């Protein structure tokens, strides 16, 4: 039961595109290769980097991302290459603890 709960709550791993405004997370993988991959990595979007969604353009694309203290823009189809583990996972773990305690 507990294990299943966890699986269900592991919505914490997602593509950058799916992140909500103001949501924070840590990059776990960048799946792009070639020029795209290099541009993304050169700007510091590498595994382990903390990011948060700063906002979106009026037409919801591109997205502005906060990383290492500066702001970066990406198109949604570029954001798809970046996998993120969001912080909501932490709060879920906490809620899990509460659940266990109960």
């Amino acid at each position, binding site marked *: 039961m507990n294990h299943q709960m966890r699986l269900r709550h592991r919505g914490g791993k997602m593509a950058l595109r799916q992140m909500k405004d103001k949501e924070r997370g840590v990059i776990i993988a960048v799946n792009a290769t070639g020029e795209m991959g*290099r541009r993304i990595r050169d700007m510091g979007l590498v595994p382990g980097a903390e990011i948060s969604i700063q906002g979106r353009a009026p037409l919801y694309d*591109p997205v502005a991302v906060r990383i290492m203290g500066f*702001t970066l823009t990406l198109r949604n189809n570029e954001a798809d290459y970046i996998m993120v583990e969001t912080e909501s996972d932490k709060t879920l773990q906490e809620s899990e603890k509460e659940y266990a305690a109960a």
Partner: protein
Amino acid sequence: MQTTIALAGNPNAGKTTLFNALTGAHQHVGNYPGVTVEKKCGAFTFNDKTFNVVDLPGTYSLTAYSLEEVVARDFLAIEKPDIVVNIVDASNLERNLYLSLQLMEMGLPVCIALNMMDVAQKRGITIDIEKLSNLLGVPVIPTIARNGRKGAAELVEALYKMVDRNHKNGDVVSPIININISYGIDIDSALLDIEKIICDYSFMTDKYPTRWIALKFMENDEQIIQLAQKHGELFERVLCDKCLRDPDSCPACQQISRKCDTQLMQKVAQIVTRLTQHLQQTASTYPEAVIADQRYGYIRSLLRQGVITHHYDQNRLETSDKIDKILTHRLFGPLFMGAILYAMYYFTFNYSELPVSWVEGFFGLLASVIDNFLSDGMLKSLIVSGIIDGVGGVLGFVPLIMFMFFFIAILEDSGYLARVAFMLDRVFRIFGLHGSSVMPFIISGGIAGGCAVPGIMATRTLKSPKERLATLLTVPFMNCGAKLPIFLLLIAAFFQEHRALLMFLITITAWIGALLAAKLFRSTIIKGESTPFVMELPPYRLPTIKSVIIHTWERTWQYIKKAGTVILGISVILWAMMTFPAPPANVDNSAPETALKYSIAGRIGSSIEGITQLAGFDWRINIALLGGFAAKEVIVSTLGTAYSLSDADPKEVDTLEQRLKSESNFGPLTALSLILFTMFYAPCFVSVVCLSRESGSWKWGLFSVFFNTGFAFTLSVILYQTGSLMGF
């Protein structure tokens, strides 16, 4: 003793400001050979030494993907500057050091100028400069380039010391340090293998450290791989020629030929492929990804050793982010952008009117002085109608260009231009363009009344080559101020009651035409994936007056210098075409129409009448449109001459209007066809010159002349023929 210093750094790190602070007025702007990337050089003297400073294009990295990166890298490798001053944004240390590491890996003597210390301080960032300097092994000088020259003097002194010390060490500036970042055991051992091969073949070992070359192979660097392939071929050919002659008599050859069994590239490729497969299987990643990760990892571990202290949360909202909440807001953002663009437009075109009239007045005066001074004849006609009108026409744009670039410099330096690109990218991407394309379009006449010349020059803010070229080729379709008189004339003559509607339709048609043409180009001749939009939104900054003025003046001067010389020649040619040959004496040439019809231009106009009739144009319109190549303003005045008005002053359009109305073969349909043609046909010569220069090739300039004319003619014929069939 002269010393060359290269300034390298990220865009927005304050490179140009520091360059200005170091060199003052002693600078000149040119292009790197063969490319349109700007090269700024300057110089300053300190004690007994002269320092030549080269401002490299701003880059985030030294891969070979963008033109700027290739240019920067080639300069560093080939010119071998004595010192590389790496400008690092202190408020953004982690990402900025990524470039620093690559500079150091290239084995270059680096000195770090830690810029924007004030911004860092405001953000609650403290940096232990001595520790940073010790850990990296390079001098680090704190500077605040924008507030006067704080730190500039210290920087100069440090540079002086570096040169001095290096010269004492045998007059050769040696790399200060060679950092070797560990990329993990797999990559490190593969790097060693590749290094060995590189040494065996002595492949570019005179230019780069072997480890760096090995790294580039691992990163799949296109430029290095190409060089290696060439090197391999060359190597083989040289050997085989000798060996073929007498393989046994040349022991050296034999020795090398064993090495030649497999080419350099094949050997390296083997190692890289093996490693890639290994990394794919074990960690589902690629060598280049691991390398980037490790570089950032190295920086992070370095900074964690007490170099940097954050007093606030790093992702705290700065003032800049608060401004963005409004300026890129879903509703207010676009509204504000519209207001800004409109205001810029309004100021430029209204307030440049006065200086434009001064310039025009000056040339008018010059013309009248010469008019009085010289007797009537060919020489006078050449000087007044050819040279003064032509060159004056070009220089008349100067105040406009200055105003435009003044505002663009402000928008660019303040960081707002990046927001415009951010907000509009979604729309422009549909047509294969980039968010940054919007500015050139607007300037060229997106709101009727701009000018394509500054519009073409404004494409420099676009960093993606394909999108930039597509923008360049389509901005001349916008309705510039010079096209307006002909539109107004025709509207007044035939559509007086629908003036506003027609002007609106004309503007919309230009946009649709330009965007569709861009889409066409991007899916045919400039095909290719769109360039990634990974772009920094720099924090808002108050632009400094000095940099805005320098920026404006550079652009303006380039325009005067280059466009001016070519235009002079072209205006003389056009003048000759409309003057020679003169009608024989027995023909009554009192009417200007007769002389014009007799000239080369007139003959051309008449000879193509058969074709142009399809769009409803007779020989008079043909001549006017031909004159429009020089400048679109000429269309109205030439029409005036062609329709035998004694005074072809464009101010007297009223009379021309009456005349056109009364013409039997000139109806509303002809007018519409002519409006459509004027909108889309060949750009004026000034535009063509600028377009050729900005695209780096006359090929594109010529292309725009022929393509646009063909495009416009097709549209006009369709309109005219359909209209005629429908009985208009």
